[in-house]
């Protein structure tokens, strides 16, 4: 049976049977990989550390009969320990992992999503501003996963988005111009913050984190993007609920 080494990020893991776990990994070459890790709940397991959430590792994976493959060994490349020092960081990393898990199917390459998640986890672990990292991730992952938010055209009429107050309306697919949305149904974003979030789109993460957004502006965008992602993924995101309760 085919065996290869993949560089992976662990998205999540679940208990399986008496002492095993099922790991959901993300790789560049093969996208999402489901792998069972035999006896990984036992204290002497060499597999356990590889499939801790958010760990970057080189995993030796053996093809199985069905969708589930087998983790045979490997080495931790970077455990991103800084994430676990703060439950809010864990919640944000979990949200990003959950979106990657829900939005991908096993077997199709995901080099850009992998790179995006890796960048975001690294900066989260370093202690950079969590809300800005999340904003960046939501903006970029939604584009990679096929439901990106248009920052240039009204999602309703297709007209240019320029000045004035804009409404973030997940139900129409994103931002709507004042002509299309005069009711208070959406979340209002101002033209200045639109300019700044557009800059997020074209910047590397480290650079994007320097773009000034006030807490209020960032919150509007974050709430709007969360609603947008949730609407399009059409699943409940469990880590988002916890993240919200931690923010209260």
């Amino acid at each position, binding site marked *: 049976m085919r065996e290869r080494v993949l560089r992976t990020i662990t998205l*999540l893991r679940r*208990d*399986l*049977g*008496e*002492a095993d776990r099922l790991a959901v990994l993300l790789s560049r070459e093969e996208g999402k990989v489901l792998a069972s890790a035999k006896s*990984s*709940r*036992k*204290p*002497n*397991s060499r597999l*356990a*550390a590889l*499939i*801790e*959430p*958010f760990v970057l590792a080189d995993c030796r994976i053996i093809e199985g009969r069905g969708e589930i493959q087998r983790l045979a060994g490997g080495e931790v490349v970077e*455990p991103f320990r800084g*994430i*676990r*020092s*703060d*439950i809010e960081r*864990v*919640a944000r990393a*979990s*949200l990003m*992992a*959950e979106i990657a898990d829900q939005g991908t199917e096993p077997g199709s390459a995901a080099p850009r999503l992998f790179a995006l998640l890796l960048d975001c986890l690294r900066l989260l672990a370093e202690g950079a501003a969590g809300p800005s990292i999340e904003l960046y991730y939501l903006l970029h992952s939604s584009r990679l996963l096929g439901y990106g938010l248009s920052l240039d055209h009204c999602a309703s009429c297709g007209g240019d988005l320029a000045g004035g107050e804009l409404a973030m309306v997940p139900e129409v697919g994103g931002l709507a111009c004042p002509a299309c949305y005069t009711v208070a149904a959406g979340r209002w974003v101002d033209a200045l913050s639109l300019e700044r979030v557009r800059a997020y789109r074209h910047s590397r993460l480290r650079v994007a984190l320097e773009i000034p957004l006030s807490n209020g502006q960032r919150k509007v965008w974050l709430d709007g993007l969360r609603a947008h992602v949730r609407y399009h993924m059409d699943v409940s995101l*469990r*880590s988002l*609920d*916890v*993240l919200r*309760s*931690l923010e209260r």
Partner: protein
Amino acid sequence: MATYPRAVTRLIEAFRKLPGVGPKSAQRYAVHVLRASMDDARELADAILEVKTSIKPCKRCGNYTDTDLCSVCADPRRDPRSLCVVSYVRDLMAIERAGEFRGQYHVLGGVLSPADGIGPEDLTVGALIERVRDEHVTEVILATSPSVEGDATALYLARLLGAVPELEVTRLASGLPAGADLDYADQTTIAAALSGRRRLE
């Protein structure tokens, strides 16, 4: 195609709900019960009903008990100023088996795990803080598992408990490998982890 009579299917389905039991094992258990003596079968059924009707969480620590206070809380020889915080009762049992710890426990009822939708309000965090204040606890040992969730939970609690004056907060020492479940660890490992516990923050 022949299938099992309804009562057998019902039993198989009931066994399938147990953790770690797949369809094959469930069928094996059901057949085992079918072959067992009436006494053994009745003993199994009674035992299940008895735990469900008589066992409840200890009012103070969350351990299983059939009275108001569990055997640990009711034991006057156990030091109430030293409190060991565990995720599950099975972890409490693992530490008891090691026989080193002479204080009392607090069972959280899980770990903080955003991926599973579990936040602070789903655990007995509030009750823990109250106990630490009211019962004049001087040492809290955080004995969550050495995983992402266990570490995050320990550090979250350490931060909350940091506000309590003259309280020493420690964490089980490593030796327990990353990602392992505490209740799988052997007694020597747990004893070593307890004696090598280190201060947090």
